[in-house]
């Protein structure tokens, strides 16, 4: 079946539909990761977005039960050059196409995704409409133009949990995934052959604000000995402090950070009262909480190859990123320093408070998908909490 991807500036692409046969509008962005489409599809930070993969052949290894980054699919639409005719991997439990159908998400294949990427690169991220309906491309363009803009949108309210809960109390979901060894040193293997490392005992109890948190953040926290109480985005500072946490974690999430003024306030109330670590949207929230601002990047950073420099050590880390906004370095007060920068465009990638136990990174130390190189922030958070005790 035919599908149309139409952009608000009038450009459109005709392709073939796969997945659900419905229409979707949202901000169209591209991701340059060569693997990890299942994680991308289920990352709540993509809420409200139509995602195009620059890698041309997608779906090769199917989908499996473990690589979901949340309980649902969040992208509004999925754009690829070519859908794999087969799901070929021992971990696969289904095809990408069926997966999209299950979640009611439309996909388009057979379009020139490089042309789309170049267009977004030069014209900036923009709204689009992905449809399988029998409408003209002009009509689809009109729908794209009618979609609400990303700026000012609060998508967090769509993905934050309704109530607080304890993450993985029995330690089943957080074990670090690994691969089987010839000498049989792993002991924990599930029925479907997936193998896990054992979890360490719990050392710290923290509260995590869930703005649309990826599961692997929760897993990584637990793997470092954190027991996590997950709270909704609207939870007040007082309610959090009443839980007497050893620290507070601020998660990733979708949408425009400027629109979340209620979150900025709550975080301000936590500063100085407990150690804080933020990732992605959480990092931007901290930026606002300390008095800074964010701005919208032309087409964002989405991929697994972004070089980030630690300004203190000079070390370069290849990072997994997914953000369309960035903290404005000039807007920051004197007691907050930029700790990390992106080497491609020199935008802010990390913040550290000079006197309080607060730090944050714009990128994804939890990877999933992408490199694990920045994973050390989780133990660093533990160290900070221990130092603050």
């Amino acid at each position, binding site marked *: 079946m035919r599908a149309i991807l139409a952009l608000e500036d009038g450009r459109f692409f005709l392709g073939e539909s796969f997945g659900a046969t419905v229409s979707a509008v949202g901000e169209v962005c591209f991701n340059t990761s060569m693997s990890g489409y299942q994680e991308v599809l289920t990352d709540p930070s993509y809420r409200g977005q139509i995602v195009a993969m620059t890698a041309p052949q997608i779906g090769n*290894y199917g989908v499996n039960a473990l690589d979901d980054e949340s309980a649902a699919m969040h992208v509004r639409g999925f754009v690829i050059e070519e859908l794999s005719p087969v799901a070929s991997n*021992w971990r696969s439990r289904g095809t990408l196409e069926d997966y999209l159908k299950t979640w009611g998400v439309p996909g388009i294949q057979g379009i020139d995704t490089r042309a789309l990427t170049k267009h977004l690169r030069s014209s900036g991220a923009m709204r689009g409409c992905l449809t399988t309906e029998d409408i003209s491309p002009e009509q689809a363009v009109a729908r794209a133009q009618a979609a609400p803009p990303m700026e000012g949108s609060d998508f967090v309210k769509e993905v934050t949990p309704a109530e607080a809960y304890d993450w993985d109390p029995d330690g089943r979901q957080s074990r670090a995934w690994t*691969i089987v060894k010839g000498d049989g040193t792993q002991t924990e293997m599930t029925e479907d052959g997936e193998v896990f490392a054992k979890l360490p005992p719990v050392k710290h109890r923290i509260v995590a604000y869930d703005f649309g948190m990826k599961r692997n953040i929760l897993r990584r926290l637990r793997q470092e000995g954190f027991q996590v109480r997950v709270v909704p985005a609207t939870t007040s500072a007082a309610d959090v402090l009443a839980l007497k946490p050893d620290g507070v974690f601020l998660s990733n999430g979708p949408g425009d950070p400027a629109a979340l003024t209620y979150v900025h306030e709550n975080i301000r109330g936590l500063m100085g009262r407990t150690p804080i670590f933020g990732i992605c949207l959480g990092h931007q929230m901290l930026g606002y909480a300390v008095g800074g601002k964010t701005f919208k990047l032309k087409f964002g950073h989405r991929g697994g190859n972004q070089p980030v420099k630690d300004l203190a050590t000079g070390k370069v880390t290849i990072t997994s990123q997914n953000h369309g906004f960035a903290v404005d370095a000039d807007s920051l007060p004197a007691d907050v320093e930029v700790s990390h920068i992106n080497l491609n465009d020199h935008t802010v990638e990390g913040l550290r408070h000079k006197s309080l136990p607060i730090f944050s990174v714009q990128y994804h130390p939890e990877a999933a998908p992408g490199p694990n190189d920045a994973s050390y922030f989780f133990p660093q958070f533990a160290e900070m909490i221990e130092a603050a005790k």
Partner: protein
Amino acid sequence: MPKDTSLQKILLIGSGPIVIGQGCEFDYSGVQACKALKEEGYTVVLVNSNPATIMTDPEFAHRTYIEPITPEVVEKIIEREKPDALLPTLGGQTALNCAMKLFESGVLEKHGVKMIGANAAAIHKGEDRQAFKDAMIKIGLDMPRSGTAHTKHEARNVAQEIGAFPLIIRPAFTLGGSGGGIAYNKEEFEEIITRGLDLSPVSEVLIEESLLGWKEFEMEVMRDRADNCVIICSIENVDPMGVHTGDSITVAPIQTLTDREFQVMRDASFAIIREIGVETGGSNIQFAVHPETGRMIVIEMNPRVSRSSALASKATGFPIAKIAAKLAVGYTLDEVRNDITRETPASFEPTIDYVVVKCPRFTFEKFPQADPVLTTQMKSVGEAMAIGRTFKEALQKALRSLEIKRFGLIGDGKDVVVDDDTLRTKLTVPNAERIFFLGLAFQRGWTVEEIFEMTKIDRWFLENIREIVIELERIASSSPLLDEFGRWDWNYESGVLEEFENDRKKYGLRSAGIELRRWKKLGFSDAQIAALAYPMPANAPKGAFNGLTEVRAIRKKLGVIPTYRLVDTCAAEFEAYTPYYYSTYGDENERRDSGKKKIIILGGGPNRIGQGIEFDYCCVHAAFALREEGFETIMVNSNPETVSTDYDTSDKLYFEPLTLEDVLNICEQESENLFGVIVQFGGQTPLNLAAGLQAAGVPIIGTSPKSIEIAEDRKLFGAMLDKLGIRQTAGGTAVTEDEAVTAANAVSYPVLVRPSFVLGGRGMQLVHNETDLRRYVREAVEASPGATPGTAANPILVDHFLEDAVEVDVDCISDGEIVVIGAIMEHIEEAGIHSGDSSCVIPSFSLKPQVKEEIAKATKAMARELNVRGLMNVQFAVKDDVVYVLEVNPRASRTAPFVSKAIGVQLPKLAAKIMAGKTLKELGFTEEIHPTHFSVKEAVFPFIRFPGIDIVLGPEMKSTGEVMGIGENLGLAFAKAQMAAQPALPTNGNIFISVADRQKTKIAELAQGFVDLGFTLFATSGTGAALKAAGIPVQKLFKLNEGRPNALDMIKNGELAMIINTPSGKVAREDEVKIRSTATANRIPIITTLRAANASLAGIRALKEHGLSVKSLQEYHGV
């Protein structure tokens, strides 16, 4: 970190001759390193014995030593140059091994030379099997169950511990897995162990658990001094474990791993490079993954830039060698800029939005007795790479780049006919053509699962291949549609395409080409579409309608033309500035125009025997020269190992197959301001395209295709020689068997027969009688390039063969006005041995002045008559001072780089400028240069890879590479060439001598010479009697069938220092072959011609009298 200012002078070791497992990728990496280090202000001292390399051009280093890469010679260079550091990681295994020997013997320490890039400890840990295994276990990585052995007894114990066959055997410290293999039973085990222990310089083999059928992956890692690590490229092998990665079809990036699995592999790669301790630079790490459990095993790591690094560089646009050189002198990745994006640093990981496929190029046809089964020992001689948006497109492009007369996976009119049983065997047992058999199997309706069981090739690849094959019927049924324009009967299965068509019409897009576009996106060539849509009878006459032109015309009329995409390292995230293109059928064309006058240079495609790095050398020079002349230079090539496919060699690079279709597409794209296309530099590949290009109206510059045709066409050429009064051996042409017999009778036997329009003597044979001739004609016509489906073979040339004549090669250059001789090269081996396999000498050493004069005169006359503009090569035979022309090639020859190095003038550069309109006067080259030193070129052979085959040379070329020896006298130059080619000439010991009956009276002086130098001679009865009769002391040895000890025993006991063994007759006797092949396997110098024996005598004498001295090219040529 800034660069290391404590270093001033850096010694770089090259990789020596091209051999299987070590191709021209190390010229590419060496050139990049030289450029990078010079750019940083270091003084670069280079040693490499291979004259055909760009890196050994004097301008790439401050001091260039074309000297043997042996520890002794490099020590002499170190003594002379006193470098501060040695960079051993860019010259392949050769450089690494040499550096390790220099370290172990204390030479580096004695002279205060520091190893940069990787130190000795890291190299040892990476290369030594046990040390590597220990290191991997230490960091918690999985390894195959295995053990090392130094004796057969130890080997048996290890095998018992592992407990099951098959077992993999890998000798330590050998190139490309040389000497290894898979043993399925005890007998094979014993055989491979024996060979492996012999070949390993440290007599060590690794025996391990079989991972046959596991998926195979590679990671290209880089690390800097600040411990920043990045993956440049990930590679997945289509052929699973069991086939050497160099012989596998490989794909970048990895296609079938989930992100979690990929990240585990990535983390492991970093852990490995750190644990091994490669401080800076690149490493290649290979992994095996179990297809059902995901168990991941580390196979090996190369603590240096490798063949895969070159592939990764071309696949991603990230110049690994150049960056490795910068990291070696202290820079960190973030301090180095990404040339392609300019704004972003090199500290990132390339992400690509296309698929790269590399296919190996084999030459089993050159070694009919060799075992063509692919194993863990590398057998391919080259590779082609192609880029497409999908695996399907890239695969078909790569297959048509291979120069094996195939135009895609299947349906190009060249599919073989096999029965099901054969097909099953061809799928089960890995072989060079397996990919084509996969296509046939799908055509027969075999399922992915069935084929997976036979091949263990991942289902993803199989399913994609199946998608190509199922399109065949659709194309075949399109012939009535393709007959006329506008009469397309779609016959769709679904309504999707109608919908497309309607939409496209509505929005002004062309609609009728959708189907054709689909095929093109699947990588189908016009030749495949033509063959499928216009099937031709197998016996169609030459020049018959083949549909190719028609398909092209229809395609263009429908607007189905390729778009060109940039290889930009970043999947279009950033603007790219480097015009490095590949074609695909997409929406947007990214090709840019500079407005400058352009010249397109066509490269040589994959390396193979007969066409190698020498032609790349010429193409690169053309690019450099024409850039100097203000042209925009455009390179087209498909070989990822080369300097020509480095994105900064030319102004624009098209990484594309060298077929008429693909080249014409580029010519059409670049037609504005196109000054011309150069077809003379890339060997036979572009020459074969010349006629087609010219017919399509593409301007060919330099010597005209007509002249090339005259030189190739026996009748026209004969007429020209008659006109010029130049003698040639009697010859004729034939298209049929009977014609060949008539021609042979007319010129008298023995005759040399070969197809026209081939390079490297492909299909060439010395034939002594009619029976052999008839067999030849029937079998060998296949070697004549049919070029397109349905075209008949080119004529066969039948020439009288001159026995015991001296062969002479001449390279000259002409601007159409004057002709200057580049060099007259005298071959050491007599005529009849392919010129590419002969050692040759500049200046000539035995020709009389009047003979040389006659040669020069004839050369000049022919160049003028052919109106040569550029280079020309002539081969002469001289018998009893009478000069005969053997053949003329009005193009760059294999010897052009050697001549350039010998005389200190880069002939290809001048030739390119001539093609662009300059005259030799303007270029200041009007006089032949007569060097006072001697230069010897020696060929290097792959026999050690093909155990048991006869090493005797003939008219069909068999060498893979060449080395050069330079010296004050012929002996020294020859000795150096032998040393560089390995095995080196001995200076004492026992020599076994056995010559053909007709030569027995001619060897007295030679034998006495060896005796005078202190050698002891051994001979069997015939030769022994002749020597005794001449009063020369000789020890008698049994013939193989007479008893023992015989020559074989002495070889195996290491009691022979050298063997002189000339073939006894037309058909080699079995025991001769055994002696020669055993000697080769044991690395004992073996001389098979008397002239070479005499040269060896001179060489040994020179070594003993004067010793070895080294001198740089810059000193020889006073620059």
